[in-house]
């Protein structure tokens, strides 16, 4: 149950797996993404509603073969240059895209968590996405209305970051919840990184709890959401999102940065220290 992030990834993530590292602007599992890179996972189908920096890093390092997504960018800043390089020039490898809308992907996660083969929404109305995504018309047997059916998302591995877990592995998160519960419940295997491990999960407003028996591995990773934030623990590193635009624009600079801060660091603590040093240096 409680394990190290390294062991969790070793045990639960295989080359070629379909992996969802979810987090909707909050609690983004960056440390887990870095561990996938350190362990050189390849041929992954990456799923995420809002792929941002950590997905840019996974794609730029050649871990992914396919991306299932609905919005891929650097929020408030602009493009993801490594994602664009893969899609526009096939570097470092071609990237297959399965593109959805947020509403479609949310319904697909919900269907997966509900153990249903498809979700239903009023969406994908005569736009060009219909031809580029996995959606099928479905008719209401009572009213005849035609709606959109989306195939359930059932990742091999669901990975999320949460604020806390207790020693039995019950997980607690609060603030913006995104699709994290659905990601864990829809996945065959799941990994949760947490800011801290406590004796008792005292109830908190707005918090949800994932019982230990719904999760395969819980690993301590303080600061593991960087550059995103963990509500109640630390703020979003807005400067880093801006800086990433520069770092990721040039392929070599990206490589050097990843070498220095991810490949040459053993875990999230070393990563945080290494990034902190270079930030200080930059100032």
């Amino acid at each position, binding site marked *: 149950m409680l394990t190290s992030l390294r062991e969790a990834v070793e045990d639960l993530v295989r080359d070629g797996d379909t992996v969802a590292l979810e987090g909707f602007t909050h609690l983004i599992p960056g440390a887990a993404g870095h561990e996938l890179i350190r362990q050189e996972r390849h041929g992954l189908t990456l799923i995420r509603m809002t792929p941002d920096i950590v997905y840019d890093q996974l794609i730029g390092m050649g871990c992914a073969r396919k991306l299932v997504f*609905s919005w*891929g960018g650097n929020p408030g800043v602009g493009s993801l240059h490594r994602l664009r390089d893969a899609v526009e020039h096939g570097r470092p490898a071609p990237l297959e895209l399965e593109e959805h*809308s*947020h509403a479609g992907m949310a319904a697909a996660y919900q269907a997966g968590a509900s153990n249903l083969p498809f979700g239903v929404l009023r*969406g*994908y109305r005569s*736009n*060009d*996405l219909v031809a580029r995504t996995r959606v099928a018309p479905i008719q209401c047997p009572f009213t005849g209305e035609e709606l959109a059916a989306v195939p359930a998302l059932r990742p091999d591995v669901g990975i999320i970051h949460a604020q806390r877990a207790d020693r039995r592995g019950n997980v607690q998160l609060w603030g913006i919840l995104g699709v994290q519960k659905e990601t864990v419940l829809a996945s065959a295997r799941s990994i949760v990184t947490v800011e801290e491990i406590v004796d008792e999960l005292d109830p908190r407003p707005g918090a949800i709890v994932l019982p230990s028996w719904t999760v395969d591995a819980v690993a301590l990773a303080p600061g593991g959401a960087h550059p995103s934030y963990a509500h109640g623990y630390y703020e979003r590193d807005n400067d880093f999102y801006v800086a990433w635009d520069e770092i990721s624009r040039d392929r070599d600079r990206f490589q050097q940065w990843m070498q220095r801060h991810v490949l040459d660091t053993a875990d999230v603590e070393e990563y945080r220290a290494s990034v902190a040093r270079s930030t200080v240096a930059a100032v």
Partner: protein
Amino acid sequence: MYSSDEMMAVEAARRLDDGMVCFVGIGLPSTAANLARHTHAPGCVLVYESGTIGAKPTELPLSIGDGELAETADAVVSVPEMFAYWLQGGRIDVGFLGAAQIDRHGNLNSTVIGEYDRPKVRLPGGGGAPEIATEVKDVFVMLRQTPRAFVDRLDFTTSRGDNVRVVITDLGILEPVDGELTLVQVHPGTSVADAREATGWELRVADDVKTTDPPTEEELVALRSLQTKGS
């Protein structure tokens, strides 16, 4: 003096009434909705797709996930609930959209420039836009008016323009007339010719094009006091 961004935010805010429920993204829409909330429409309800309902940020958020949105919200719901119960539920009055391209019918492209399979520029993608465009009552579009953005043919239709009620640009205001976007207003210092030049199709112009009232002192003070963080 004021910037064209400020003119756009002010014109968008002026169109929001007290009690309206607005689905807002980051950037100008969030600025406009918060400006309305701090001026004439204190009861304007801000809904962010991250799941925060009734958020009341004191500063402009840089991300739709900023912690302050959750802290100040009346309710925080999961993303699946947001799209099913709230957006598709038909509870949103106004949805703001931006895009890289728009056509004369208000259809938007935020997916790709060039061919989908051989993209010149791969854009972030639709996100919430396809269903915001069809599930809210009124769509407000905000984007800068240039021939590259206001195109005769979209490279990709990410969302439909059927519910677009107004397009707010840095040059003026367009509204659909018989299904075609028509210039009805130009901002101070802008001519109809400027707007025509900035449009990639033969722009329809209303008979009586009005000139936008410049931002009032009160509007500018409120706007700038919000921008400590978001700018």
